[in-house]
């Protein structure tokens, strides 16, 4: 295995802390009971875009597992969902060039399609399948939870994630914006 760079190690540590704080303390309740919109996934998406797939997976696993640990039981099935989401967004990040100051309409479209697909795979497929396998829960109930979970996460990632990307890019110098003086 290739050694993790120091930058990735620190990004994982601080990213996981951010994920933990947003997952545990910050959420907007919705009209549907027991469903809340939280900001952990938009942040996970943006950090994965910036630091790549390895960081994405690790932030997903460590951030989610630590948040679960506090409440006494780690749901490995949902941790796996977060890990996959971080991984997928990390790969998307290699296509989008946020660090070069590029995130136009095309970037926003790619980002949103990718995040919606990744959320659907994570919460509609991976987490429920593992839930049924590990915890032997009834399928309809699991898939309903998955559907509600992905809808909320897609919505918050679409709005908050896109806004964060736009604002991040605006704060960076565009590539090639400097010209060499003769």
């Amino acid at each position: 295995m290739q050694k993790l760079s120091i930058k990735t190690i620190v990004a994982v540590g601080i990213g996981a802390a951010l994920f933990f704080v947003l997952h545990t303390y910050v959420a907007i309740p919705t009209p549907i009971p027991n469903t809340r919109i939280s900001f952990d996934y938009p942040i996970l998406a943006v950090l994965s875009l910036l630091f790549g797939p390895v960081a994405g997976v690790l932030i997903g696993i460590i951030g989610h597992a630590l948040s679960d640990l506090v409440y006494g039981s780690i749901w490995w099935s949902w941790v796996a969902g977060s890990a996959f989401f971080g991984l997928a967004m990390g790969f998307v990040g290699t296509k989008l060039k946020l660090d070069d100051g590029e995130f136009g309409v095309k970037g926003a479209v790619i980002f949103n399609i990718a995040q919606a697909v990744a959320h659907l795979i994570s919460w509609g497929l991976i987490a429920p399948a593992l839930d049924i396998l590990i915890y032997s829960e009834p399928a309809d109930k699991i898939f309903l939870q998955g559907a509600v979970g992905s809808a909320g996460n897609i919505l918050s990632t679409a709005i908050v994630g896109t806004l964060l990307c736009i604002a991040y890019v605006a704060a960076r110098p565009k590539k090639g914006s400097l010209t060499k003086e003769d």
Partner: protein
Amino acid sequence: MTGLFNYIPRQSPIHAMTGAAKLVCMLTWTMAAMITFDTRYLLLLTLSALVLFRVSGIKFREVKVLIAFSAVFMVLNNVLIYLFAPEYGVELYGARTELVHFIGRYGITAQQLLYHANVILKYTVTIPMVLLFVSTTQPSEFAASLNRIGVSYRIAYSVSLALRYIPDILKEYHDISQAQQARGVELTSKENLFKRLKNASAILLPLILSSLERIEVVSTAMELRCFGKRSKRTWYRAQAFAAGDYAIMAAGGALVCISFLLIYLNGGRLWNPFV
């Protein structure tokens, strides 16, 4: 700070064990509980977990907030399961003994009750153990323990950084949030959902930018101190294993073996008293 990752110092045999041994024990314990659906075994594990909790000297009121959260989640989970699949137990156990009938497909069957008992027991087996681990292990020893059980020290260091920065980031979040609210960014239910999501970005953007800066500063500092140049590192909080540590790790392994043995004896993961 609220009581998250609250290490509660005490004098007890459980506090005295090394973090790595407790981590192994906690992981094998939860794994054993994850594998089996034998109600008798789950009941036994729950009782032993409560005994161990008692031995540690941690008081119930010190962890009651966390337990209350988990209890709410457990109840909701059970209600959802029942609403969606009132006959799921019947399906699993392949027998039907109806005790009460309400309306339509809703009633109480002995099989469904046993299934719910399993679901509840799965919580009661793991929650005391995980809380016990969290409250008897120093956070800084936790990272050392991860490295001890074979996780690469770089990843263990990430975990240690995460635990270190959670309180800082939480404080920063509150500061930014209050500053933005003072400037009129509305986050309460007075605004509609979409507006609130948009307003939330006004807090998250400064938070993420300051975190990126933090990443820059910390990674430069680590680079300057030659982090990661060697294949191993030592930990300030690491402890050597004692005989008792080997004993509890072996016991943890044995629990997992019992789970597998029960699968073999019961002819499946379920213990089925109905056939």
